[in-house]
């Protein structure tokens, strides 16, 4: 069953700024959708429009088939976890979690029951009488989630909830959020700028760029078949090597002297891409091209080699190679590489669409 | 950007009490003052006559009005400068010491709570020419103190009483200002070989200048408007007109002299001055906000 539908939803500010031209998205019940993109791409605005904190300028938002555009946030049956948690500083953990229920006129007994259930699920039982300032970052994060969960809403909204935590806690909370969402089965919309977070959490991802949905799909769809160079560069770390090139009947011209043979009906300017992990070390005879090594980052389990494609006219396009295990090539030496055709990504330079 | 509620009518309801009080007890009287300033009214309020700018013309040709302006300036700057100097001295001393700071602060700030009129009465008895201990002591030292007769002495008395009340305020702000001076700057100056005295005048005092400027404004405003009680309880503006400040004159001409038109004209002039000061202060606040 389709739970949340955004139909040609757009946002124009009173000053005329087009924050979001038009976004279409339908979310299935229980699905975990992540909105991801660089800062300023409109992902938070979109989330806040779903929450009812920003008005919807054009299009329609439906939750369980009901039009929501004019509804107050409290009437939409959603719950939200904020970036700074937005816990009421003068209320105890218990009161923070109970506040929304009290406002809805729920019986005291029932509130107690619900809060203690959720608190137990999140390991907050011991902390119920504390004030937010007496909690650690991770605990506050849990309270914010608890406040959302007690309401048992139709939709969870998360606005970069992990960005204020340190790296270790972030990973831990990430796993926890995913487990909880699976257990509760609540439809979730989650905003982040961190692509690792996005890939690990999402059933489906929406990659936003300048208010436009560049691609909507599962993490593996986006990894294997990015629809645009933007998505290609955004998903995956280190990001995909993208080279401006030209496609003729001889193949792909990466530079005047370097051509990768390919027969393809498309002609003209393209963007050619390959992920760092798909480049393979080979010898001079079989190689597609050579890399002049500029820097080596040894991470133990893997090695990242930064360099530039060697051409007759000196250095060409920059490129990153990711090799597993330790490698210690000399800086400034040449490294011969092959780029297996099955891992190529081709995009039309003009339309920015995948070929 | 602040997040707001969408209601349109509610904010007016919320503002209503404040706007009503402002309209009834501020805008209406202001309008009345403006109107009265253009009329001449007999003392019984039975008839009045439109006389245009005559009240203002009278005001600005009246030497007593100029004298009152001068009195106000002398009085205000004396209060500001004496009060700030003493408070700065005490604040520097309090900043130096480590133990007992709070106790000293407590013992210095309480005069803030004393009503200006009471402050006037307290100092009056000390300086009463016939029995005040200070007056008697001055007499034995060869100074004939009688503020009932001597205008300058009356001025000194109201300055002392007004300053006394304001020292606490200046002290608190200077102390806060001093504590905000980064220690590392003072330490650097000490390493550069500056003596404590020199350090104060070359490092600390310049850094205090925003506080000093702010206090100067506050003190002037205080001396201008809030010392009515001091003057009224001790000298009643006398002897002669020697302690009649502009604000006192508005009251004196209006309620004692029953010159309603003249008093209203003075109110209008004062309101104009206040309006100007408001604009200046607003600019000042805005700039402060921008730069901070």
């Amino acid at each position: 069953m389709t739970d949340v539908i955004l139909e040609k939803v757009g946002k124009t500010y009173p000053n005329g700024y087009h924050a979001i031209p038009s976004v279409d998205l339908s979310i299935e019940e229980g699905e975990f959708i992540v909105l991801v993109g660089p800062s300023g791409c409109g992902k938070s605005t979109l989330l806040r429009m779903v929450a009812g904190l920003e008005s919807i300028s054009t299009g329609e938002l439906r939750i369980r088939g009901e039009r929501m555009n004019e509804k107050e946030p409290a009437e939409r049956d959603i719950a939200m976890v904020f970036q700074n948690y937005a816990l009421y500083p003068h209320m105890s953990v218990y009161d923070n979690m109970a506040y929304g229920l009290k406002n809805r006129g729920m019986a005291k007994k029932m509130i107690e029951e619900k809060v203690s259930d959720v608190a137990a699920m999140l390991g907050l039982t011991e902390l119920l009488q504390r004030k937010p300032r007496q909690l650690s970052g991770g605990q506050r994060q849990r309270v914010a989630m608890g406040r959302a969960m007690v309401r048992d809403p139709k939709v969870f909204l998360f606005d970069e909830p992990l960005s204020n935590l340190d790296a270790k806690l972030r990973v831990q909370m990430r796993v926890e959020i995913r487990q909880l969402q699976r257990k509760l089965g609540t439809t979730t919309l989650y905003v982040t700028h961190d692509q690792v977070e996005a890939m690990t959490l999402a059933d489906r991802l929406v990659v936003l760029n300048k208010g436009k949905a560049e691609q909507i799909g599962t993490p593996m769809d986006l990894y294997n078949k990015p629809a645009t160079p933007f998505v290609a560069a955004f998903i995956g770390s280190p990001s995909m090597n993208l080279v401006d090139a030209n496609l003729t009947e001889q193949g792909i011209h990466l530079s005047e002297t370097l051509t990768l043979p390919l027969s393809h009906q498309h002609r003209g300017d393209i963007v050619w891409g390959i992920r760092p992990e798909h480049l393979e070390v080979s010898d001079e005879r079989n190689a597609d091209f050579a890399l002049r090594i500029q820097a080596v980052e040894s991470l133990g389990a893997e090695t990242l080699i930064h360099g530039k494609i060697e051409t007759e006219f000196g250095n060409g396009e920059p490129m990153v190679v990711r090799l597993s295990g330790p490698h210690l090539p000399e800086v400034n030496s040449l490294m011969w590489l092959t780029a297996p055709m099955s891992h190529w990504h081709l995009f039309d330079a003009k339309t920015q669409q995948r070929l | 950007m602040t997040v707001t509620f969408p209601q349109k009518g509610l904010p007016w309801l919320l503002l209503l009490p404040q706007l009503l009080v402002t309209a009834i007890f501020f805008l209406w009287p202001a309008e009345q003052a403006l109107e009265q300033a253009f009329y001449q009214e007999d003392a019984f309020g039975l008839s009045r006559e439109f006389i245009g700018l005559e009240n203002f013309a009278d005001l600005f040709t009246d030497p007593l009005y100029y004298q009152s302006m001068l009195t106000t300036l002398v009085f205000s700057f004396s209060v500001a400068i004496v009060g700030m100097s003493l408070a700065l001295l005490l604040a520097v001393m309090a900043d130096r010491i480590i133990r007992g700071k709070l106790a000293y602060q407590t013992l210095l700030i309480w005069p803030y709570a004393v009503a200006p009129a009471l402050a006037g009465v307290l100092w009056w008895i000390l300086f009463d020419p016939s029995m005040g201990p200070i007056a008697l002591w001055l007499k034995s030292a060869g100074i004939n103190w009688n503020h009932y007769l001597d205008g300058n002495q009356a001025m000194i008395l109201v300055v002392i009483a007004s300053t006394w009340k304001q020292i606490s305020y200046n002290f608190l702000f200077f102390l806060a200002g001093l504590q905000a001076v980064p220690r590392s700057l003072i330490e650097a100056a000490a390493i550069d070989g500056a003596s404590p005295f020199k350090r104060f005048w070359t490092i600390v005092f310049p850094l205090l200048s925003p506080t000093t400027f702010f206090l100067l404004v506050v003190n002037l405003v205080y001396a201008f408007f809030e010392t009515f009680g001091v003057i009224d309880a001790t000298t009643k503006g006398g002897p002669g007109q020697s302690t009649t400040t502009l604000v006192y004159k508005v009251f004196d001409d209006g309620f004692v002299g029953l010159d309603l038109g003249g008093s209203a004209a003075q109110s209008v002039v004062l309101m104009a001055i206040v309006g100007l000061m408001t604009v200046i202060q607003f600019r000042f606040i805005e700039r402060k906000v921008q730069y901070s």
Partner: protein
Amino acid sequence: MIENRPWLTFASHATLLTGIALVALPVWMALVASTHPASAFGVGHIPLWFGDAGAETWGTVLFEKAGNGVDTPVWFMMLNSLIMALGITFGKIAISLLSAYAIVFFRFPFRNLCFWIIFMTLMLPVEVRIVPTYEVVANLDLLNSYTGLTLPLIASATATFLFRQCFLSIPGELVEAARIDGAGPWRFFFDILLPLSRTNIAALFVILFIYGWNQYLWPLLITTDDAYYTLVMSIKRMLSVTDGDIAWNQIMATTLLAMLPPVAVVIGMQKLFVKGLVDSEK
């Protein structure tokens, strides 16, 4: 400081102690004077040490009559002063909270104009526009009433500004969280905003209480009925007696009693008082 110079520290303490002594001098004198019978004051003579009539003087002014033409006892005028001070304080805080709430958390036409109108009252003390304000209050038939004593003084730009500053520092996400939790404007005001502003309210309370208690000219003008005399203004009435007949002991006792409540508030709530002073001048 950096150097450890004992004589400098000594000089600091000496200066401060001198300052404290000078500041306390008039109060000391008043205290001494209030312990002598009225006859002890005469030409060339004022007592410099405590006498034995203290209990009598204080008892008289406090419970019988303040003297010098004022027949009301001090405790009664204290009550009036308290009513006026609390009326002004609560009034100012209430209407300022509401208007700051409107200005910060709502968008409506003429918002800036309202802001300016309120701002104009900031620097216009009642003394400046005393005659027309008196007339307005007289026209409204509010002379000799508690309403007349308090209402004209409760418009407050200072308090509105302070609360505006305080509200602006509240994170927007908190408002959003409250909206999602189903709190409307009123619920938000009472459940979130007021509890979060309570130290600011308390600090302002101290300052405004002193302001209200110390009102002088206004009660002097609009009260002619003994029943509405406030303590501070009664001093003026007491001093209006012909010179030779002034009972200084009673005046001094009354003066000390008049300054006692606000001074006690300042000393007892020193922290809040300092915060209030600093805040209200931002």
